[in-house]
């Protein structure tokens, strides 16, 4: 178990979501949810299938626009995020069912994560000369660091569509890290992995948090992983928030136990 350091618990709020509701036609995906993510913490979001976890991530990075509520990120409050603004502001993410650029190599995929950081005009890039070359070299260096960190050197030139699932997830994490995000959203980073892969991935998540100080919000189904990694846990069920607290608090919560195990009628 990872002891929530008092520093983190008292930390500054990086992102807060207030009274957000989201519906698709008659389906209410999120109902009046409020929570916050503090700087430097690992925040888990759990709940049974269809609880609205992924929808919540989509609201945070602007894929979905909620009908009600507000989102405050780095002190700036708005009613809805836009994906471009979210990326610009330093929110990176991975996807539940891996969204990579399948036709490109692992290296190129991770390089796309630098899109927002490359400023030289494309004429310079075509010429591969002067400032653009220096820029490209600098970005390549950062990307190589990430590749080393994630231990995917052997597959850097491989077209990602051909990689096994576990490695694809790692490349996807690499792409998100290349953005040097302040907030990293991970949607089921360990889904479909075997034990060894899960352990690797857990280690990467912890290292990212420790070394780069990146704030992480992750959705995960493996309770062992959640309890080990996270500082605080948000529990959703049927789009509602049913608990929010440290792993220990959440584990002992009556509502959570009912949601997961069912209520005796």
């Amino acid at each position, binding site marked *: 178990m990872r002891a929530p350091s008092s520093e983190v618990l008292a930390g500054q709020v990086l992102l807060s979501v207030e009274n957000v509701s989201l519906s698709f036609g008659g389906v209410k995906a999120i109902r009046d949810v409020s929570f916050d993510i503090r700087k430097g913490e690992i925040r888990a979001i759990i709940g049974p299938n269809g609880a609205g976890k992924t929808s919540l991530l989509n609201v945070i990075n602007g894929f979905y626009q909620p009908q009600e509520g507000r989102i405050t990120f780095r002190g700036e409050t708005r009613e809805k995020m836009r994906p471009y603004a979210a*990326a610009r502001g330093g929110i990176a993410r991975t996807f539940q069912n891996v969204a990579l*650029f399948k036709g490109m190599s692992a290296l*190129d995929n991770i390089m796309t994560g630098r*899109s927002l950081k490359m400023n030289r005009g494309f004429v310079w890039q075509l010429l591969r000369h002067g400032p653009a070359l220096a820029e490209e070299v600098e970005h390549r260096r950062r990307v190589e660091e990430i590749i080393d960190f994630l231990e995917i050197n052997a597959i850097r030139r491989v077209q990602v569509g051909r990689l096994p699932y576990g490695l694809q997830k790692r490349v996807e994490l690499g792409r998100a890290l290349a*953005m040097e995000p302040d907030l990293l959203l991970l949607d089921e980073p360990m889904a479909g992995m075997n034990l060894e892969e899960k352990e690797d991935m857990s280690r990467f998540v912890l290292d990212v948090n420790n070394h780069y100080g990146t704030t992480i919000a992750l959705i995960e189904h493996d309770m062992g992983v959640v309890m080990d990694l996270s500082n605080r846990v948000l529990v959703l069920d049927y789009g509602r928030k049913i608990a929010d607290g440290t792993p220990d608090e959440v584990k002992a919560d009556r509502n959570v136990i009912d949601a997961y195990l069912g209520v005796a009628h």
Partner: protein
Amino acid sequence: MDLLYQIFIDPFVQMGTAPDLLVQTLWEGLVGGVLYSLIALGFVLIFKASGVFNFAQGIMVVFAAMSLVSLYGLGIPAFVALALTFAIMLALAWGVERLVLRPLVNQPDIILFMATFGLTYFLIGFGELVFGGEPKVMIADQLFLPRGAYDIKMLGGFVSLQKIDIAATVIASLMVAALAVFFQKTRIGRALRAVADSHRAALSVGISLEQIWVIVWFAAGIVAIVTGIMWGARSQVEFSLQIIALKALPVLILGGFTSIPGAIVGGVIIGVGEKLGEFYWGPLLGSGIESWLAYMIALAFLLFRPQGLFGEKIIERV
């Protein structure tokens, strides 16, 4: 028996006895094919980046050519007119993104396809209003495009190569090479490929779809200018030329909708096949074979490779 002989033996006997004619036919097919490729290229660019089959590519070709000729007609020097035509195509790309694509984002592809139909008829009407309906002559000389032909003595006869055709082939090759470098080597090219692969992943790394769309439509506009000049120089510039958009269809089926090399190879196969068919088999069926032969070739290919020669392989999990 006689018919079978005429179909399966006689054309090849003719090819053998008059090889110079065969070379001439192949060359003409190649050149026609290059022009088909250029049109198909415009389609592929837009299809790759946005999944939209842009029916308006044909009218964009005409519109670009008309703009160029009309600007020159106003007394503007040829190369200034060319630069202005580039500006017009950029404005068109921007307008299309703002007024057509952006309001329809996340709509099914068929809606966007229909929107390009609307765009086609808008551009025809708007173009006829501005440029007038009568055919115009391309300002080939003023743009220093060569004229005349080389007559090469070979294989016991003469093969005549039009200089404008050679120029078209060279320019088309250069443009394809430039596009390939642009797609492979630049950040924007990488972003384009990214958008083609997955919209939401591209959004998540902060690639701006709007910007990318303007760029691809502008690229397709540049291709349209080049196509318009080359095609216009061989015949004349008129609105009915927009129907060449339909000629790109068999090329795309053959080459695959997402492949730039596919557009080139597909165009050449269709061009050469059409000319050979017309010259050697056409007389058997009466004339008019070239209006449908391309579709037949494409259909035959569809039976064996539904994804096209270079298209991405369709693997379906069942």
